[in-house]
């Protein structure tokens, strides 16, 4: 059972950019309603892709520098990183099947 990990801004480089496997980052904030809709779907994806993709949650309130560096202006935003670079971004709530299709296409 794999669960998304919440990380601090200072850990972003190590956990996301230096990762060997692809990492899906869920940019969210406590004041964002739709972010709460996305969270259970991301949790399920973390189980489905266990071992293949790492799942990370970044609270933009605590990570304004990272959010601005990657041009986050809308949350929830899911960003897929491969070898330290963003390769795909999905904005807003999407059903799980649609997210899986995007993930599979980008992997």
């Amino acid at each position, binding site marked *: 059972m794999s669960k998304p990990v919440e990380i601090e801004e200072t850990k972003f480089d190590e956990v996301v950019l230096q990762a060997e496997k692809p990492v899906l980052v869920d940019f969210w904030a406590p*004041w*964002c309603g739709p972010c*709460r809709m996305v*969270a259970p*779907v991301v949790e399920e994806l973390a189980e489905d892709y266990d071992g293949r993709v790492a799942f990370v949650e970044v609270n933009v309130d605590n990570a304004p520098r990272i959010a601005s560096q990657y041009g986050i*202006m*809308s949350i929830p935003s899911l960003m897929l990183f491969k070898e330290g670079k963003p390769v795909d971004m999905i*904005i807003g709530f999407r*059903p799980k099947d649609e997210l899986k299709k995007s993930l599979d296409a980008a992997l």
Partner: protein
Amino acid sequence: MAKSPKKYDVVIVGGGPAGLSAGIYTARARLSSLLVERGAVGGQIINTEWVENYPGFTESISGIDLTEAMHKQATKFGLETLVAEVTGIKIVGKQKVVQTSQGDFTAKAVIIASGSERQKLGVPGEAVFTGKGVSYCATCDGPFFRDKAVAVVGGGNAAITEAIELTKFASKITVIHRRDELRATKILQEKAFAEKKIEILWDSVVEEIAGDPFVNKVTVMNVKTKKKTDLEVAGVFMSVGFKPNTGYLKGIVKLDDIGTVIINEKMETSVPGIFAAGDIRSSSIRQIIAAAGDGAVAAIGAEKYIKG
């Protein structure tokens, strides 16, 4: 997955106020009840920071808190919740088979309460700049526009609520509205008119949204004078109406020409045993209290239908 589908008395599609209210009533009627929701419960109202018109709350309550309380209340009485996407409903004799991304469920009655989602305006630049300045949720994205000028498109309750919410962050909010008066309720209009940061552009429509790589301009046309003006803004918040989430219902229940489910005063659809409640039904006034009321009517109808 060849195993036979799990059986319920009632399956409710959608976890907004209509579905949750229906769940409270069906669970209390001791009907085995499953609510299927594609994300977390709440519906459209989770985008609203303050709800002031739901009876019983003297101070405003957030949409999230209100629907979480409804969900707790329904769960307490025995409502089960499943996170899954409903893909279709099959009618087999008197049984309904609700097909979902997590398998099939049979039900004696189904309550459709899958609500609506934000309408796209369909102007050049809107899709390209979504997430780069174009937003459909002011509560979510307002803080990214601190001390910046933004535009809100629309003139209804949602648009004016969002414009007022944005005064906490943005330096200036221009409301672009196609008519010469607002549809929003009077108390919201009074608040908006009193806000120094809010300016309203009457009789105006968005022609194009431009930027590089983020939004920096929106071109607006006055529908009376046909004059075009450019507004320098970093954000454009879209609030131009809603479309019903009825894609999975085509060919199952009768829909009207705008895609909402046709019902009678008992919330009965064209198919016996299938009810509709809330924003998804025809002529909905799109209010939490009305959705909750619809949910109760549909639930009591479902109970009667099941008991014959």
